[in-house]
């Protein structure tokens, strides 16, 4: 039971943070379908950083520090990469879905191209490293104590440092978008940019801000995904997690609390699909793994069909801002 909850949490974190990323972009009025691509790019940058830091004798013994630095690099890389999207959407007034699709294709191409050129491989493994004592060390957990009571054990045993950072960021950013002046301005640009402009808000700047935050979060999420779920391999793919996060954002009705709930729900379903053979009850059902893999996606469809009535997207999302239109 505790094992399932721990695994669920591990799957939930990337979904949570990337869905929040989608929310920031869309609340400012830009459809960020490129979440998947930004995740891939961030994961690639983070893995590359971790790989090189581990060659450095100073960082070999400090796994957690390496982890955090790589995470920051991933976030910065994601933010920079997302500038491509905001530039095409704001400056070129391009179709945002097409721009996002281009980024989704660009990220794996870049990642695989460089991984192949520099390492002559199709994937980049960052996890294994030999420390100064000669032991092979994984990134590992920042906390490990199984003597706790079950409730705490879920959070504080076998936990990654990214989990706590993600939860902290999630709370901070939820407060930011609802309780601060900038947050209000950002949201108004997604609803009625012309009205926002009429009271002196710079719509384009707000949209750049929203998309850049979105990019940073998605880059971080991508790194969190490969460092925790995907065993530290950057392969130029994140198994469609970015798109799943997009669906969670819609499911969560573009609101943080809904997103948190959705991410937990789908994190649980995803966890089932990988650990079905470790749960005796499910194992006795003897269903193929494909069935459990299907469930999250089918659930998204069903949930969207039922949620569509109360679904309320930001009104101006996807529409290039035109001063003259009132």
């Amino acid at each position, binding site marked *: 039971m505790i094992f399932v909850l721990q695994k669920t949490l591990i799957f939930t974190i990337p979904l949570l943070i990337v869905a929040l990323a989608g929310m920031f972009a869309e609340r400012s009025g830009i459809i960020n379908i490129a979440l998947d691509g930004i995740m891939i790019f961030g994961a690639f940058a983070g893995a590359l950083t971790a790989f090189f830091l581990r060659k450095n004798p100073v960082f070999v013994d400090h796994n957690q520090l390496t982890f955090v630095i790589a995470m920051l690099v991933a976030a910065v890389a994601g933010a920079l990469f997302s500038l491509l999207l905001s530039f095409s959407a704001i400056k070129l007034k391009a179709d945002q879905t*097409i721009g996002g699709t281009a980024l989704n294709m660009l990220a794996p*191409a870049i990642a695989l191209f460089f991984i192949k*050129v520099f390492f002559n491989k199709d994937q980049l493994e960052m996890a294994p490293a030999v420390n100064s004592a000669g032991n092979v060390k994984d990134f590992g957990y920042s906390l490990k104590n199984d003597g706790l009571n079950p409730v705490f054990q879920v959070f504080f045993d076998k936990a990654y440092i990214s989990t706590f950072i993600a939860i902290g960021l999630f709370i901070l950013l939820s407060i930011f978008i609802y309780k601060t002046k900038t947050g209000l301005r950002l949201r108004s640009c997604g609803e009625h940019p012309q009205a926002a402009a009429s009271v002196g808000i710079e719509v384009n700047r707000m949209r750049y801000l929203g998309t850049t935050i979105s990019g940073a979060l998605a880059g971080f999420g991508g790194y969190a995904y490969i460092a925790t779920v995907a065993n530290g391999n950057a392969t130029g793919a994140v198994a469609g997690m970015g798109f799943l996060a997009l669906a969670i954002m819609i499911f969560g009705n573009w609101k943080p609390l809904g997103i948190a709930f959705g991410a937990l729900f789908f994190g649980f379903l995803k966890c089932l699909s990988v650990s079905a053979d470790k749960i005796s009850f499910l194992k006795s059902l003897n269903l193929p793994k494909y069935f459990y893999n*299907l469930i999250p996606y*089918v659930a*998204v469809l069903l949930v969207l069909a039922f949620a569509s009535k109360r679904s309320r997207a930001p009104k101006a999302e996807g529409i290039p801002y035109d001063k003259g239109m009132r």
Partner: protein
Amino acid sequence: MKKEKKGLLASEGIRSVIASLICILGGLVVGFVVLVLLAAFNENISFSEAFTGILTVLGGPFSAGSPHDVLFQFGNMLFQATPLIMTGLSVALAFKTGLFNIGAPGQYLMGAMGALIVSLSIPTTVVPAVVVWILALLAGILLGVLWGAIPGFFKAKFNVNEVIVCIMTNWIAANVVSWVFSALDKASNGFFINHAETKVNFIRKTATNGVATWSFGLNELFGGSYLDIGILIASLIAVALYIVMNKTTFGYELRACGFNKNASKYAGMNEKRNIILSMAIAGGLAACGAALWCLNGAQDFKWETYLTLPADGFNGIPAALLASNNPIGVIFAAIFLKYLGAGGSNLAAYTSFNEYVSPLIIAVIIYFAGASKLIKDLLGKRSRKDFVKIPDKPIVTPPEDPPAEPEPEEGPPADEPAEKTEGGEEK
């Protein structure tokens, strides 16, 4: 001469072609810059290699070396373009109806599944191979139609964004296909999966049942490549689609739906039906591409596909965008993309770069294609400036004395203003 140029830019079609060419050029330039940068930072790679690199990509199959290899690669390029033409048509049709069909990979997989199961399970000793071939193609298309209708249905009935539904159906299809093949193979004691060879990742080739698309010597002509008449079938479908979209009431309704959903509803069209139909046809087209590819007879289809989606499905999007959603244009766009792909594999074979340059260039082309409306508008503005002389002064000026006015202002000789207007026209 001058007039012709103006006329060229004024036409919408030509503007689209020029915009696409600009996008392609942009993609190639970025690709070249990446190669040069790599050469600058990596001691093992010289600058001259970056030049040969971009030339290799540009050369496509022609950079293969010996004439035989060139022919062979050219034939394979045409063969591989077949499914891409179909997925490109699929995406283009949906775009025309205002829908973004990113679900082509899933529809493609369903089509492959339908075609493979039918073509392998009906013994050609009982039923003639021609009939089996046709049945298999139809089965593939039917599954694709059903699969494509799902996002259309969700969009029409629940107003759920088709992009999300398409992506979900992609992954569902990938799992369903793996599941069905693994179950079928178990049920039939290993009939479907190619256990004979050392690699068991693939479905039995349809040629083992005597089902293969006719090539009429095309494969021999192109150095023993896989080329068959599939590319002709795909091209015919493209032409047919062009006629349907532009010359029939049904096509008009679909396009009207894409232009303005509310207006078409107001005009008495059933816009919900049109959305579902459009997505269903799009699904059928993508599936048909997969069926044509599988029924070639000599192709390996990877059945355990639940972690990956077919690239040809996604590449339908660039094909459609490059062609500005024109079905005839899709044929050329698809061949061009595969041309770049062939260049990429040659790049991997002959230089220290690798084949991922091609998707990189294609991605950049799409990035620019997103802004193609802006490019087209800029081109349009240019042509309009040339075409209708926009007066510098506001139009409010009284119409009595326009020719008389400039002369006294200009002062001295009477010839100069005449020359000036000519010069202005040329700009």
